[in-house]
């Protein structure tokens, strides 16, 4: 175990996997000499050279499509997209390329690439640099989507993603990079894709959250505890494929659910969680599932406006109280 920042845990995973497998390489904007705007790839160009760590032009659309075919021809590309807000530029490569060929050419090719990006708001980056577009990504067949919150999961899930035979979108959050935590060392620390994590177990209400919202959910649980409400907090970790078993088990116990995601509400990822619970847990529910997500409007810049739209502990706690009322 070592105490590390989230960004350092990612860096360690990249270094270990690139050392372990010469077919792994990285490309993206400013990831080389500069080490990435969030310093996740710091030092890697010096260590692995300019062929395996590439600074690129600003060409998200082509780069994503290139990751798809590079992955089908023997390498394991890791593409960094600087902000999740630029994911729309990657959509054709994901929806019409990556999604399709794993099925059409099954048995002929694998597609082991990882697309790392970071989203989320709270620091005044404005409407084009603060979004969480999770539902766009989780809607795409054949593509896995993970979103670790702890440094340990950041490392373990990134290693799992790099070794996975399918495309994996790896969602980071700009407010998580400096988070510190214990991280297991060495090659064998792999966190399986498709398994949720029980952050704290409770009996009254289940709070299912993703990415930084897990931290807000933990804070909400503390607020609820003050009122004697015993909340179970579950970090989904993988958005697709979803760990349905963990969701069912928790709701069977608590009979109340709050779903939290930082993306927009309508057709957002929280909507799918609500619908999945409707499909599989209806009879266990004593109250409707409560959605806590971004209001359906662009993200404003000014502090009082931005902080008003982003989901937080208070909103989550209020939703839990509504569920239990």
């Amino acid at each position: 175990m070592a105490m590390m920042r989230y960004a350092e845990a990612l860096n360690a995973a990249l270094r270990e996997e690139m050392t372990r497998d010469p077919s792994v390489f990285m490309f993206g904007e400013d990831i080389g000499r500069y080490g990435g705007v969030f310093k996740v790839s710091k030092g890697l160009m010096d260590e692995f050279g300019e062929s395996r760590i590439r600074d690129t032009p600003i060409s998200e659309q082509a780069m994503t499509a290139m990751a798809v075919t590079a992955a089908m021809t023997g390498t394991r590309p890791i593409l960094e997209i600087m902000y999740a807000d630029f994911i729309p530029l990657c959509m054709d490569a994901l929806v019409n390329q990556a999604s399709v060929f794993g099925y059409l050419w099954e048995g002929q090719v694998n597609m082991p690439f990882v697309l790392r990006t970071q989203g989320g708001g709270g620091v005044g980056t404005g409407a084009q640099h603060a979004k969480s577009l999770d539902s766009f990504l989780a809607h795409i067949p054949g593509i896995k989507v993970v979103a670790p919150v702890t440094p340990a999961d950041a490392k373990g899930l990134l290693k799992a993603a790099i070794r996975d035979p399918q495309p994996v979108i790896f969602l980071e959050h700009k407010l998580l990079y400096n988070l510190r935590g214990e991280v297991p060392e060495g090659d064998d620390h792999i966190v399986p894709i498709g398994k949720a994590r029980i952050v704290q177990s409770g009996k009254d209400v289940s709070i299912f959250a993703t990415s930084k919202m897990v931290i807000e959910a933990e804070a909400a649980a503390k607020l609820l505890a003050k009122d004697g409400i015993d909340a179970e907090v579950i970090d989904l970790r993988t958005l697709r494929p979803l760990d349905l078993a963990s969701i069912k088990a928790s709701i069977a116990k608590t009979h109340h659910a709050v779903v939290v995601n930082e993306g927009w509400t309508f057709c957002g990822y929280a909507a799918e969680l609500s619908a999945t619970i409707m499909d599989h847990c209806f009879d266990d529910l004593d109250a409707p599932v409560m959605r806590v997500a971004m209001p359906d409007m662009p993200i404003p810049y000014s502090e009082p406006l931005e902080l008003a739209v982003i989901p937080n502990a208070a909103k989550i706690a209020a939703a839990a109280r509504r569920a239990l009322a």
Partner: protein
Amino acid sequence: MQNAPSIEEQREIHRRMILTRRLEEILGVMAKEGKTRGPLHRCDGQEAVGVAACMALRVDDYVCTTHRGHHVYVGKGMDARRIVAEIMGRETGYCKGRGGHMLLGDASIGMIGGNAIVGAGLPAATGMALSIQVLKQDRVAMAVFGDGAAQTGIAHESMNMAGLWKLPVIFLLENNQYGLTVRQEVQSPIEDLFIRAAGYGMPGLKVDGNDPVAMYQVVAEAAARARRGEGATLIEAKTYRMQGFSTSDMGGYQSEAEMAPWRDRDPIRISADTLTALIGADAVAQIAAEAEEEIQAAFTHALADPFPVYEFHTPSGAYAEE
């Protein structure tokens, strides 16, 4: 002639061009009879571009093509029977009937693959070339794409990166003068698209797309350059689309006056003439006869093959196994 095809290769180019032509003619008839499914995009008159270009590459080189890719499929060495089976939606097709005629692939011979998103072939080949460079292989990747595709943004991003990193890739622009129903001048203000290569620091050149020998030579030279580590090349092959956009094209915009001179320059006729001088008329006729046999057998067998049975594709699914 430098990088010229051997006589053996010319015979094979000729054979594959005839296979392609006959494949499409038969499909055209079946389409009229309502025996095919979905639109079919024929490359009649363009066979030399796909066939000769692929023949100039190694089997382990990578090639990708467009919605109009029959000549590239056959040119790269795919089996006519399994091509027909895929187009007829059979279990024995290259994609088990999942793909259809626009999306065939055969990774075992570097055919990856067809693509029905216009422009998608350029980053696809660029990504393969990136993989080749990272793995320090001596392979080459080639994208065959149209004049319409040349106007897509992704073409620009791809050629810029290919030029920047000196990637082993060939951009083969198949200029058949039409993007769907509109002529190239309605899509771009310049006539010769290859001049854009200068903006990407790579050589650009023009070739007669209806002359198989010329096609073979320029592609062979570009491949040699790429293998020498000198990077990408943009080749514009001038040709013409003889059979309309697709089987669902209502036509009416390609005039006979426009088409006549191109019909006279049929690439199969041109290659037949060249070959006759080299191996004699009988040998050339025999190539055609053998090709005809092969294509007839391909349809007979493929049409007797079973349809696939539906199964949910678990790896694409949204829930983890419990």
